[in-house]
Each structure stands twice: as structure tokens, then as C-alpha cells.
């Protein structure tokens, strides 16, 4: 198993010692896969990502990753009033490659433009980040992660509340990244989406299930993942998590 790019074993932790938000998380992910991270709000999706970024104040267990993962936050965690344009934001993905007192390399600037082009925003490079639509902002943040060129990419609800054009574009980029043999972990509320990907991790304070969508996404598993939030539609085969967004 040592060849796998993502190994998580017995992970537990939280934001203060003795107050675990997440327990019993173990999974191994292979290169070129997309994994859905499913769970209710407060179920530990963002906490799992924090732990994988080694930023959780209190964490136990094993997290072994190739390289430093790129992270795409929820767009409402960004400051919309900053005087930065889309290209400025994407270029942050190259910050670790150049000391602050030196100009960013020409190659990085060209690469940043290419990343904006990949998410379909080549024309928006000079537009102020805060003036873009929610879906466009999400795509800019994904372009920033693309510029980081990491083998592992963590995305926190990248498809929540984005327009159809943005969602289609983001889906296409995911497929490209999978073809490039990268590992994607995508926090989502959309069970149907999760069915189309390679692996699913269900979290509800602890790991409820992990595996291929066909095995994992059963009504029983979804019920223990979402509890009372779950609405089961006719037939019992299709389950939809009701999304109580509160931010």
C-alpha cells in the first residue's frame, strides 16, 4: 500500500485537545481518482481537509500524502473587497516558488493565464475578483490550485451554488485532473454527483463508510450519514440529502 498517493489511517482530531470533531477515518486513494466526501454540515468534511493539510490544532493518526496538497476553499471564505483581480488570485498559487522580494517568473505568469483559460476565464484575468459571479470566483480559486500543480487536490464544496456553466466547466476540469493521474477529494452535498466518481467517504463525526459508490451509497449508509436530514424518494434507491445551508 506504500505506493498509494494518499493514505489516511486511524485519523481523529479537532480544533482543541480533547474535543474531537472527527474520529476513525481510514482510507487509501490511488492516483487518477476522484473521491466524494459526503456528510452533513458539521459532519467533519472541512475538518478532514484541515487534517490532511496538517493544520488541525489537535490531530492523531496517520496522514501520508505525496507532495503538499492544493486546497480550494469555499468561496465565502475569501475577502471580496480586496483590490485583486482574477489573475492576482491565481498567481498566489505560485507564491511558494518565488521569494517575496523577487518578481514572479514570466513562466509562472504564463502558466497562471493558462490555468484561467482551463477554467474558461481567459477573458476575466483583469476583472476584480469581488466583481465576478459566485461560479466564476469558484473557478478562479480552482485555477489557483491548478497553478500549484499538486498531485493531491482538496476541494471544499466547489459545486455548491454555482451556475450551470461553471458547474459543467468544473466537471470537465475534474476529468482532466483525473486523466493527469492526480487525486481529487471533493466535499459535496450532492449524492448523485458522488455516484459518478470513483470513491466515496461518508462522514458524520466519524467515518460511516468508504468504498466504491455502488457499494457505499445505499439508503442505510446515507441514513446513518445524514440522520434526520435525509429524504428518501420513491423506490428507496434514490436518496437526496437535504442541504440546510446556514452560511
Amino acid at each position, binding site marked *: 500500500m506504500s505506493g498509494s498517493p494518499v493514505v489516511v489511517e486511524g485519523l481523529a482530531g479537532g480544533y482543541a485537545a480533547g474535543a474531537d470533531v472527527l474520529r476513525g477515518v481510514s482510507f487509501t486513494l490511488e492516483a487518477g481518482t476522484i473521491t466524494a466526501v459526503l456528510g452533513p454540515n458539521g459532519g467533519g468534511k472541512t475538518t478532514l481537509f484541515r487534517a490532511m493539510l496538517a493544520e488541525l490544532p489537535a490531530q492523531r493518526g496517520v496522514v501520508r500524502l505525496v507532495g503538499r496538497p492544493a486546497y480550494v476553499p469555499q468561496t465565502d471564505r475569501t475577502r471580496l473587497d480586496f483590490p485583486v*483581480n482574477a489573475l492576482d488570485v491565481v498567481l*498566489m498559487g505560485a507564491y511558494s516558488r518565488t521569494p*517575496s522580494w523577487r518578481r514572479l517568473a514570466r513562466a509562472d505568469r504564463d502558466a497562471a493565464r493558462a490555468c484561467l483559460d482551463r477554467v474558461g476565464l481567459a477573458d476575466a484575468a483583469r476583472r476584480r475578483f469581488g466583481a465576478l459571479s459566485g461560479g466564476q470566483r469558484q473557478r478562479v480559486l480552482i485555477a489557483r490550485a491548478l497553478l500549484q500543480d499538486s498531485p493531491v487536490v*482538496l476541494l471544499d464544496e466547489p459545486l455548491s451554488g454555482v451556475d450551470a456553466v461553471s458547474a459543467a466547466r468544473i466537471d470537465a476540469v475534474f476529468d482532466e485532473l483525473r486523466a493527469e493521474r492526480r487525486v481529487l477529494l471533493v466535499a459535496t452535498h450532492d449524492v448523485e454527483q458522488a455516484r459518478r466518481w470513483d470513491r466515496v467517504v461518508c462522514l458524520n463525526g466519524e467515518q460511516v463508510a468508504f468504498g466504491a459508490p455502488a457499494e457505499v451509497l445505499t439508503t442505510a449508509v446515507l441514513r446513518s450519514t445524514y440522520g434526520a436530514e435525509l429524504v428518501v424518494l420513491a423506490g428507496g434507491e434514490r436518496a437526496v440529502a437535504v442541504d440546510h445551508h446556514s452560511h
Partner: protein
Amino acid sequence: MLPEAFDAPFMQRALLESLMLAGLAGVLGSWIVLRRLAFFTHGVGTAAFPGLVVAGPAGVAPQLTGLAAALLYAGGVEWLGRARRVAVDAATGLVLVGALALGVILASDVFESGAGVDRLLFGSLIGLSDRDLWLTGLALAAAVVLHIALRRSWLAQGFDPGTARALGIRAELADRLLLLAITSAAVVALDAVGALLVTAVLVIPAATVRLVAPSVATLQAGTAVLAAVEGVAGLWLAYELNIGPGPAIAVLGGALFALVAVVTAVARRWT
């Protein structure tokens, strides 16, 4: 080309001081407004006040005791912010009132000093020493060096704190150095504009330019120019009206901010 008021040597010193403060406003003022540190800046100035009062009787440079008091405050706020045990705003307000009261009591009752409370609180044109000017120059040089070395950390951490580390940025040290730079800038600005009006030079010009600036670089350049214009005009007003330069600069800056805020709001509605 300068008005007659600036013929006197003490006015030329004040002019040099206010131009260097404009440089500090350009470099750091932008980060103060972007990183929402305006209240922190105001607090640092006020917290330094009791330090200034004891400097005279103790026979040391007011910047030294002022800096010590300000650092005590800055360290306390930073620690409170991380510990999250008390509401930071309430604790800060408490400390500020305490600092102001302590300064006034020390000045009037304990030392019966001739330092002049209003001069410490609102600044003065006269009596800027070589040492004052050198210290301001030093603070400006340090701020420029820190800006060049850390601007990307400050930007990324301010824009999206949850991702900074994933971008390979060590934000904690950079942020502490930013607070240190702001504290130093506030302390060297005290002689000219006074403990209560540090924000007049370090915050108001940047907040004004922020309303229209499209990038960090234009924000900084515009702020430096505006702070210089407001500083020089404020000095001239202070000289002509025989008032402290702090209030003159604050009133000018406040009026201009209000004007720009109204104009940009109206322009946005009509476009």
C-alpha cells in the same frame, strides 16, 4: 514655491516629518485597511500615551517608553485574539480607556509635568528633534524592507486565511511582524499628530484611496501622495490658525474621505 509658513526651520522639520509619515501611510496604511487593523492602530497610539507621559520625568526618549507601552498592548491583543477566551473588542476597549485615564492621571497628578497633555494627545509642530526625524526615517526604512519581504504573505493571508498555509505561506511570523511594523509606525507618528490622532495619518488616507484603488500597488502609491498632500496642507493650516497639526490633518482627511465616499457611492448608483 512653498508658502511663507514653511520658511521657519521648525516648519521645515515638520514638513520632512510629515513627508516621511506619508511614506509610512503609503506602505503600511494600505495593509492596515486591507487587514482590518484600523482599530488596532488607533489602540496602539492610545496605549502609548501613558508611556509618553513618564518619558519626560524618567529622562528617556518618549518613543522608547511609548513603544514599550504600545508593544505591551499589541502583544496583549495578539494573545487575546489567539486565546479566544474573552471578547477581543471588549477587552481592547477596556485597555484603551485604562491607558487614557492612566496617562491623564500620571500627567496631571503624579508628575504635574509641563509635558502638556494636549500636546501628547494631539501632536505639535514645534520641538521636533533630530532624533524624532531619524526614528521616523528608521521606521519608514524598516516598513519598506518588511513590505518587500512579506507583501505576498500579507496579501494571501488577508485574502483567504484558510488557504495561506496550503499555498506554502508561513503567515504567523509575517503577521506578527506586520503588527510590529504598525506599532513602530504609530509610535514615531505620535510626536507630530499625537496619541489620539495616529489614525489621521496612518488610516484615513489609505481608507480614502481604498474607495477607488483597483490594486494594492495603486492603493499604496495613491495613499502616499494623498497623505503627503493632507500632511502639508494640515501643517500649513495648523501654522496659520495656531492649532495642533494632528486635528488639522484629521479634519482635512475626514472631510476628504466623506467627499470621496459620497462621490463614489453616487457614481456607482448612476452607472
